[in-house]
């Protein structure tokens, strides 16, 4: 082996060794940055807990103590007025006024003097959610920075390994007697070193995106979320637009802007933002589902079905994805067996998740019952649209559904099955055992005189449910659920024993607040009656 060759190899070894130490330096630096980002995201997570607990402690006081005290005196005043005792009424009103000093919730700008109501949503958004949303974004940003530095550290480890291999090959080239082999090893070593160095340099030059360092991005995002929570969707879209302008790859800002746009009644305009978020790499089942729902509500059923199927693949435990898939299959005119199959999958999932939760000694999550309720409410809307035409709460207008009124009956039966499953799983942890033996007629909502009413005035404190029935059994579990504007009013839920005999008619008194004359809140109500976890009858009324 010539001395010149040896000298060249020696210089190459020195160069590769120097490069190895530079890569080690970059790796060490990346490790330090990784540690700093880790610390930051731990800090934010602690702050989220501290801020969350403190804020909710204050919110609990504001709503459950101060607001309740104000309501207490106002209710006494109302009672006194109804009894014609104006002097007492004035006294109680004065005491209610004094209670307002105890909480900002009862003061301007959250309290409206004219309507005598507090804007709890705005109060919660401004006092609690803004701080939590900001900390959450900082937390997510720090987590992403940590991931980026972590990836760099791993990449440098590979580069260092390759440089070590290169050093080994160059060293071997010095010891080999065969000139050909020696040169081959040297060339191979140089090639590996060059590739590893180029890759390391590429990694070093790749910037680490830190959203926290982008001026106004997180601030505008938080402002947008706050407006969105308060239902001010135009302002939310404008603020989120500013966040996107500051950081054009701010995925969550696209998602939130899409949600605000969607909520403002423009699902077709929300689609590009949802799509953009997916392009930026967000592949959650929730995002696929939100986009699918936007497509479904603009009657683009093909992409909606594809996305719901994708959502079930991303997370097979997302029960709502199966329900929505079934619903879109239904309104798009798919064979009923396919519709049924999706609902069956969801029902089986609900049963399995409930059984697993109970087996592990825990309580099943309430989202299971809520998802079952939502699914049956959607089916009920389809049935109502098929039978009575479009109404205020129609999601899929009659002209867009590929269904006929004759198909309403099996859809209604499917809805009843879901309702029974929800109550049975919630109270007993198992699906309903067998077909119900009891039969109930229509549930009528009546006033104190027994006159059936569709609507009641805003000061109504009590309504009566009247029904005919047969095959009932005293001692059975009676559950009555109330939904106001499509959401269950769990404060009105009744769970007690059936004591009205085997057959005949019954009249059940329902008070908005037992033992008082507090009125029902204004809204559209649906009442559902269950015996031993089986759906029996439902009725509707409006308080206006």
């Amino acid at each position, binding site marked *: 082996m010539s001395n010149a060759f040896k000298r060249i190899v020696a210089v190459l070894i*020195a160069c590769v060794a120097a490069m190895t130490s530079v890569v080690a330096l970059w790796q*060490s630096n990346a490790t330090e940055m990784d540690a700093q980002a880790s*610390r930051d995201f731990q800090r934010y997570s602690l702050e989220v807990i501290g801020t969350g607990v403190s804020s909710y402690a204050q919110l609990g*006081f504001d709503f459950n103590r101060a607001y309740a005290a104000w309501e207490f005196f106002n209710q006494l005043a109302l009672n006194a007025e109804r009894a014609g005792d104006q002097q007492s009424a004035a006294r109680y009103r004065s005491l209610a006024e004094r209670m307002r000093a105890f909480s900002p919730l009862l003061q301007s700008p959250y309290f409206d003097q004219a309507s005598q109501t507090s804007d709890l949503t705005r109060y919660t958004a401004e006092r609690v959610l803004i701080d939590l949303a900001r900390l959450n974004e900082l937390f997510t940003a720090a987590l992403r920075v940590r991931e980026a530095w972590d990836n760099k550290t791993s990449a440098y480890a590979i580069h260092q390994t390759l440089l070590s291999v290169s050093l080994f090959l160059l060293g071997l080239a010095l010891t080999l007697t065969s000139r050909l082999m020696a040169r081959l090893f040297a060339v191979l070593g140089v090639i590996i070193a060059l590739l590893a160095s180029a890759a390391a340099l590429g990694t070093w030059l790749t910037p680490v995106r830190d959203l926290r360092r982008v001026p106004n991005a997180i601030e505008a995002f938080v402002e947008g979320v706050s407006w969105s929570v308060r239902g001010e969707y135009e302002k939310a879209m404008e603020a989120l637009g500013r966040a996107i302008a500051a950081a054009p790859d701010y995925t969550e800002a696209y998602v939130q802007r899409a949600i605000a746009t969607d909520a403002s009644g423009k699902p077709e305009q929300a689609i590009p933002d949802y799509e953009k978020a997916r392009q930026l790499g967000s592949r959650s089942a929730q995002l696929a589902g939100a986009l699918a729902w936007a497509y479904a509500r603009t009657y683009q059923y093909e992409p909606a079905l594809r996305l719901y199927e994708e959502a079930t693949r991303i997370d097979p435990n997302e029960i709502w994805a199966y329900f929505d898939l079934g619903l879109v299959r239904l309104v798009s005119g798919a064979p009923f067996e396919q519709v049924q199959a999706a609902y069956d999958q969801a029902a089986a999932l609900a049963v399995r998740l409930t059984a697993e939760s109970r087996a592990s000694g825990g309580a099943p999550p309430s989202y299971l019952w809520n998802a079952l309720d939502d699914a049956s409410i959607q089916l009920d809307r389809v049935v109502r649209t098929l039978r009575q035409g479009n109404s205020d709460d129609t999601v899929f207008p009659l002209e867009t559904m590929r269904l006929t009124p004759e198909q309403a009956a099996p859809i209604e039966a499917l809805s009843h099955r879901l309702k029974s499953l929800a109550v049975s799983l919630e109270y007993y942890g198992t699906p309903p055992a067998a077909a119900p033996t009891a039969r109930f007629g229509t549930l009528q909502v009546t006033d104190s005189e027994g006159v059936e009413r569709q609507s009641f005035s805003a000061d109504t404190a009590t309504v009566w449910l009247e029904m005919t029935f047969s095959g009932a059994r005293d001692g059975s579990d009676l559950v009555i659920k109330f939904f106001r504007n499509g959401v269950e009013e769990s404060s009105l839920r009744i769970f007690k024993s059936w004591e009205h005999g085997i057959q005949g008619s019954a009249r059940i008194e329902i008070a908005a607040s037992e033992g008082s004359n507090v009125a029902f809140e204004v809204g559209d109500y649906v009442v559902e009656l269950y015996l031993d976890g089986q759906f029996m009858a439902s009725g509707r009324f409006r308080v206006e």
Partner: protein
Amino acid sequence: MSDNSDQAFEVLVAVLIALSSLIIAFISWRAFAAGNASGDADFAGMSAMLAAEETRATNAILAYESYGAYLTYRQHRELAMSLQDALKDLPELSLEAAALRAQLDLAKVTSAIQQQRFSRRFVQRDGSYDIDKQLSTLYADRAQQRNLNAAPSFAEADRLRLKVSWLQGTVIPLTVSLIFFTLAEALSRRLRWLMLSIGALLLLGGTIAFLYFELTL
């Protein structure tokens, strides 16, 4: 003569390589120590932060419970005062007066019970309850027992992390000096002194930079 000079040159290069390697090892040790200290400072900061957030959460629950008790006390005390006023205008033996007296008793008992559940220290002259003062006092009490201030520890950790970065940066010229020393040995006589000089300059520069960052950061 030439052989002697070559030998002396080789010895000089060997000494410089050894010196450069030693300094690199020393800097690496100092950087490691600073990195370690930075980790410790981060840990201390996180402990303080955990204690501070725990304190904030616990205090908020305690303070708002007290404030709630005060509110209920005031609610029923004012109700009682109002009922007492109303009773003055009613005949003592009337049914209405009897009903009001029952309400009055209930209001008095409730306010009396709640009165024991808050500290009057935070009740102001105008009858308002200074919740912020209570929260600050509780926090200050806790700060007497535990470090709740994470900021100095985090600042120290960041300073040390910066030091680590700079110390590691000074290793680069020293490492490159090793290449030049190797080249000085490998290249022709004409270039070797140039290589040696560049190597020596890098060694000197790197060492001065190390001393500067070690002593100032």
